[in-house]
């Protein structure tokens, strides 16, 4: 095994071009588990810790450009206004120690359906800035996840940053685990209201081979909100609409039975979370919501 320590982004790209099978390691919270448990013996480890810019973010007029290695704890602390959904999701990641090391780039690189950031990214809308010595490309988040633990990156590409739309409305994130802290998602749900475009976007985690949006549910809700004039009148969403939305969200799942939960439970729980997160965001939108201490 070789340990490559590029001092700059350009060096990292060159190293990745030269060794396309090199495994990037930043927070190490996925890669080191695989090494410690003898699940993986890459020929090259590509350490990205030395590249300072990966731990930085820039807030633009419409988006936040989030460096791939910005730790979850920094997102929780600093980006609650701009990226409320991702901040909530970051708070559910593993443990404080892991949140201090892990970042969104790692979640995207691993592309596990259980990665906590995915539903929030899908709901907010985001693009992945992937780069190689051949150049830079922006991969829409909807096109990023291509299979179980597979993504759209080319072998010589590295994730430099994620461009996430700044919140123009309330966002929520919920995750079911069988423990009250430090738990991998049985399933998760992210929801973002976009009053600017009068749309609702969603993200489902751990209930399909890849993170997915509940597109039918979104379409139904967008139409229902539009028809009822809800965006203008700010009325409470009709329970039947919320129920239908939840059912459609459940229907967007194609889960499996595994040690963490059954497929049937995942479908059920996604529906419950869809209904609840819609309720919470809509309450916030109507400006009567409660504030959250522990969650944000």
């Amino acid at each position, binding site marked *: 095994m070789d340990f490559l320590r590029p001092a700059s982004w350009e060096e990292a790209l060159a190293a990745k071009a030269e060794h396309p099978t090199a495994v990037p390691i930043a927070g190490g919270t996925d890669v080191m588990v695989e090494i410690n448990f003898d699940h993986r013996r890459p020929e090259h480890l590509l350490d990205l810790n030395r590249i300072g810019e990966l731990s930085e973010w820039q807030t633009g007029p419409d988006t936040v450009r989030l460096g791939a290695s910005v730790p979850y704890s920094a997102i929780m602390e600093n980006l609650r206004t701009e990226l409320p959904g991702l901040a909530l999701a970051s*708070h559910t990641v593993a443990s404080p120690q892991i949140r201090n090391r892990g970042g969104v780039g790692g979640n995207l690189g691993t592309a596990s359906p259980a990665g906590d950031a995915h539903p929030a990214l899908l709901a907010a809308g985001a693009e992945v800035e992937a780069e190689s010595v051949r150049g830079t490309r922006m991969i829409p988040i909807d096109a990023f996840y291509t299979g179980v633990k597979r993504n759209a990156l080319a072998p010589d590409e590295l994730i430099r940053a994620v461009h996430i739309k700044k919140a123009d409305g309330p966002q929520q994130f919920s995750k079911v685990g069988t*423990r009250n*802290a430090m738990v991998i998602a049985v399933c998760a749900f992210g929801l973002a209201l976009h009053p600017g475009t009068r749309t609702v976007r969603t993200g489902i985690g751990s209930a399909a081979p890849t993170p997915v949006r509940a597109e039918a549910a979104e379409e139904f809700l967008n139409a229902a909100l539009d028809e009822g004039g809800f965006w203008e009148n700010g009325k409470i969403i009709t329970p039947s609409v919320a129920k239908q939305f939840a059912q459609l969200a459940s229907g967007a799942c194609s889960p499996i039975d595994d040690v963490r*939960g059954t497929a*049937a439970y995942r479908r059920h729980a996604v529906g419950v979370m869809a209904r609840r997160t819609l309720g919470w965001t809509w309450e916030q939108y109507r400006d009567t919501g409660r*504030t959250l201490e*522990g969650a944000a």
Partner: protein
Amino acid sequence: MALHPRAASVPAGTPTRITQGSMTKGGIGESTLRPDGTLKVTGEFAYSSDMWHEDMLWGHTLRSTMAHAAIRSIDIGEAVATPGVYAVLTYDDLPAAMKNYGLEIQDTPVLAHGKVRHHGEPVALVAADHPETARRAAAKIRIDYAELPVITDEASATAPDAVLVHEGRTDHHIGHVAHPNIVHRQPVVRGDADAAAQRADVVVTGDYVFGMQDQAFLGPESGLAVPSEDGGVELYVATQWLHSDLRQIAPVLGLPEDKVRMTLSGVGGAFGGREDLSMQIHACLLALRTGKPVKMVYNRFESFFGHVHRHPARLHYEHGATKDGRLTHMRCRIVLDGGAYASASPAVVGNAASLAVGPYVVEDVDIEALALYSNNPPCGAMRGFGAVQACFAYEAQMDKLAAALDMDPVELRQLNAMEQGTLLPTGQRVDSPAPVAELLRRVKARPMPPEQQWLSADAGGSSVDVRALPGGLSNTTHGEGVVRGVGYAVGLKNVGFSEGFDDYSTARVRMEVINGEPVATVHTAMAEVGQGGVTVHAQIARTELGVSQVTIQPADTRVGSAGSTSASRQTYVTGGAVKHSCEAVREQVLEMGRRKFGTYHPAWATAELLLEGGKVVTDGGEVLAPLAEVLEDEAVDIELEWRHRPTEAFDLRTGQGNGHVQYSFAAHRAVVEVDTELGLVKVIELACAQDVGKALNPLSVVGQIQGGTTQGLGVAVMEEILVDPKTAKVRNPSFTDYLIPTILDTPSIPVDVLELADDHAPYGLRGVGEAPTLSSTPAVLAAIRNATGLELNRTPVRPEHITGT
């Protein structure tokens, strides 16, 4: 004349009077601090995985990937040829005629021979200069397996054509079991359950399932074996019982016991999981083969295969009662899955059977408990040992019965609660306090924790703290779907080794003067696994010898056996041994005093003499001589064995016999909040009341109760080793998928400690460690049932059981 600290007869239920040393600071009854505390908070305490030796090698175990398979061939050629590899061992390399080990039945191969019987069974060993070298070499060992059908439950184990997990059994249980795939069976029959059932106005039955729990001690199996010049070996290891290890290790190494010198290293928790051997023999074999020190450290994945687990169980119970709530009869059948090797299964069966009735008076019972051999992971000792599974079922039954009778569940329990003098189904009379009803009264009388603690009022209205809600940080509810439930449970556990086992301990106590101060040194082989035995031994020595300075020697095999740190027995038995040896030392010191000073003061001959504050004093408080002057440069050094009252074996057909030496009791009240839509549970409070006879160290006692309670909580809502029923392979051997409670899952655990002396035990004490693990689980389950109205007959409860999806 022995100076007995207690009066000959103390009325039952009264606190014990301590005379000797009651004035000495740091004696029993005080919350003195751990002697190893400073080392443990500075990181200097040397655990078994911290051992290091110049030129040491790393040992690695290759384990089977199949649960049941014949081994056609093993090819180690490439592994041996790997640079940095010093040895590769298989069954063929075992040096002695004895190639198996086991706590009671020697059925466990040191390395697999011809076949493997469970997933993760050790097949080969590698020693290399770096752990990675050893791992890579092990990966090059080629094993040709021929898969065999797997035995995974009672039906597959006892089918007429079932493959035998162990062929040609010769152990002493084979004669009384109906099938060779049953390790041991113990009925307990008393009265006439059939006739009594006719008197019942209400009968409730239930089928219960208890999942496989892991001890999940945090310090993985590890140790260091150092070959010695005389051809023997020194072993530094974390275990619960040095001498039991030694008895199993030496024959396999082909060495006499005195050439295997064992020293206890720091132990990172045990909970029963270190009662069986893990890496001990393997490290010694590699050290003896290579002539170099060998260190072995399991990682968490391997640890799940490196020790036995708590027996999963299926239990069928029937209880009857008259209209007024008096129990008429109880019938039950308890099937424990012992997995591939016997380990402690026979004793677990004995416990499950003899304690199956719980802390209740039932005159007519028909009980059967048995343990299977299967290809599931081997199961053995874990905190609560057979009594845990039974308690889960009988407490669910008590709630069911209360509901059927329309009675308060606590009142029903109190009405039928056993007490001192009760005759148990084994025919044994309970001859010390049994305050079962009182413990229940105490937990019930506690004020309820406030409702909706997740809400707090602030300037802008109210705010929600998700950390106080089911789901916690995962932000699943802000109060929606959350329902509170309350549940109660009480349990019955034995203390010490039972069924006629010669349960003794040994203590060597030395008293001498160092720098003008009298100093006591206590040497035992007791495994300090975190429970605080070392704290208590020093307290006993201070009380008995009236000195302030006590040195606790490291535990090793240079002193006689202390027995196991299990069965809630160490304070009772090794504490008793320390007390006994201290009394002998004290008597000898007084004799020296009488010889030296007897002629100067008549009190030496006439008064009751005590050792206090480093002096010999009369019971009237008159100082006769400082210990320094009595001892001068002489040392008193005594090693003695001490044993508790003998017990009897249970009759193999009827289960009758005075099988246990002491009983312990704890009661819990659980308050939970359940997100009924998502099936997530938050335990809000888990109050406990327990009788401990005498709290030698109140701080440690409460710590034991809170820790035991939390392990019970874990198996109520999250902890289970999942085994694939088709392949018998473990599906979740990691801390990612075998979850134990975090601090956010663990509620406030208020503890109410009763001290009703057991006159038969040293200082009146009662074993503490296990009882709280029994009642905690059923109390949480009862509370979840109370919140949801669901039957929930299995533990752990998973979200899908609550949501029905």
